[in-house]
């Protein structure tokens, strides 16, 4: 069938990598859409890196890395919530501090052990070509869970993205659904890190969803575009990595980010001014409103 399909048919590891990438793409598209809409990029980034000490500690203790990742994510979310609630600091500051602490802790744990060198690279950049059938199953379960939760909580999530106060007034407590949304993001990161690594999972979370936000005027459509772009990036990235002998997960993420910038330049060529002008007008009106 030629160089575009053969690598996947001839090699079991390539087929498993493709499936893993597709499952990760679906989960990341759904969770990433809300990360983009709610402006949670900073928290998503911190979560992705914050799981590192959890994974390192788990491996050190001989436990599955995914378990440690889950613990790390929960600690991260809880820590951010605690710091933002107790102080008047912005959540960005709290997130930044916790992110650095978790990363440092991860490195400290790693440096305490000699048997880590290979593992650390795998944790940071993923091992998509080494995906096992068990990992595939887990990813499939997680992807389905993410979709089901997002479908059930679609209305509160939409209200939350629109205006958290409107969610509260409509009978959907914003704090509760915000926590649920963070858990969704954490779940996605925890299951995706084995494929694309803790450093690169953030790219899969952000790039396809951000591209969707550029072209779609509906949230459902935005998610669909994100899934399609995630899937395309997986396929193209794996092919490129196969034929040119490049790192697989990094190739996938690079393709996803490249698509974002291509779409961005196309959309800004097509409609150069209107969105800009509208933004300025809004900012001006808001400022006027505040001073009145």
């Amino acid at each position, binding site marked *: 069938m030629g160089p575009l399909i053969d690598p996947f048919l001839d090699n079991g590891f390539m087929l498993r990598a493709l499936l893993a990438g597709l499952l990760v793409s679906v989960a990341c598209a759904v969770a990433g859409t809300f990360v983009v*809409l709610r*402006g949670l990029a900073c928290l998503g980034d911190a979560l992705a890196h914050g799981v590192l000490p959890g994974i390192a500690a788990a491996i050190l203790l001989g436990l599955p890395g995914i378990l440690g990742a889950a613990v790390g994510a929960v600690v991260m979310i809880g820590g951010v919530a605690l710091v933002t609630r107790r102080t008047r600091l912005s959540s960005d500051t709290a997130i930044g501090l916790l992110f650095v602490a978790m990363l440092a802790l991860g490195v400290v744990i790693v440096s305490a052990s000699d048997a880590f060198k290979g593992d650390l690279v795998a944790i940071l950049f993923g091992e998509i070509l080494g995906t096992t059938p068990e990992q595939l199953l887990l990813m499939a379960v997680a992807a389905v869970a993410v979709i089901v939760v997002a479908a059930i909580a679609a209305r*509160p999530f939409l209200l939350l993205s*629109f205006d958290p*106060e409107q969610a*509260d*007034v409509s009978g959907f407590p914003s704090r509760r659904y915000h926590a649920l949304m963070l858990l969704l993001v954490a779940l996605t990161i925890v299951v995706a890190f084995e494929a694309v690594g803790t450093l690169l999972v953030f790219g899969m979370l952000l790039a396809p969803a951000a591209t969707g936000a550029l072209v779609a005027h509906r949230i459902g459509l935005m998610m669909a575009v994100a899934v399609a772009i995630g899937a395309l990036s997986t396929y193209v990235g794996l092919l490129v990595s196969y034929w040119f002998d490049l790192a697989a997960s990094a190739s996938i993420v690079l393709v996803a980010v490249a698509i974002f910038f291509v779409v961005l330049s196309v959309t800004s060529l097509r409609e150069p001014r209107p969105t800009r002008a*509208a933004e300025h007008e809004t900012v001006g009106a808001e400022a006027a*409103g505040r*001073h009145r």
Partner: protein
Amino acid sequence: MRLDERSPAGSGSARDEAAVAASRLDIGHPGDVVVSGIDLVVPPRSSLALVGTNGSGKSTLIRTVIGLIPPVGGSIEVFGAPPGRRPTRVAYVAQSHAGAHVLPIRVLDVVRMARFAHLGLLGRMSSTDHDLVRWAMEAMGVADLGRAALRSLSGGQRQRVHLAQALARRADLIVLDEPTAGLDAGGRERYLEAFAGELHRGAAIVTATHDIGEAAEYDQVLLLARRVVALGGGDAVLTPDRLLETFGVVIHDTHEEHAGRFTVAERGRGGPQTIETRRPDG
């Protein structure tokens, strides 16, 4: 009794309850009381205007009424329950709209959000829901913008969409924070007509406003300046002396025609600032 026709069976006992009833209410945050000792009752089919400068306690009172912040002291009930417990009966239009500028969402979907309180997580939109959404969009003159992206609209059009969202809730209490900010003349006309209709239907309306002319149209006016300056009918409350107490300085009171026309100077950061207000129908 219009309310009877639309109250679902079982909620009849709440029929005659005040939309808002506050007694010795202190609002603010723990350790930082903004206004204390508020006593007020807003019956169904009546309106209350909250008038005061920024920081006077208007928005704090609004946030307390819709249940976003708990009262610091005293008591407040909304339809006989603590604020926030009756989401299907309360609609709210905020002064600024957090995520509205970036969200990829159509106008129609924004107005449909109004029905979520009734539908819950998974309930399907009924034909009644669709009818209310369509009616609300027509009332605010945005029916033909249904498929337009919210972020492509001007500030005035967007405000119309937010007001349509409040209408589509078909609430018994509508709480508005500076609803006319950014509205053009046409939007303002539609707003006045639509919300007068809501009042006539039996809803209670609570509005925070800087517009003294508009406030004069309300059944009750509450003047706030980090304390209750006055509460009562517009004629009794909107006097030069009390406006002086509320805003700092009143330069003159010209009483043109039958309508009150005040020019109020507010002590702002950059020296006195003149705000001219007049009746919307003037």
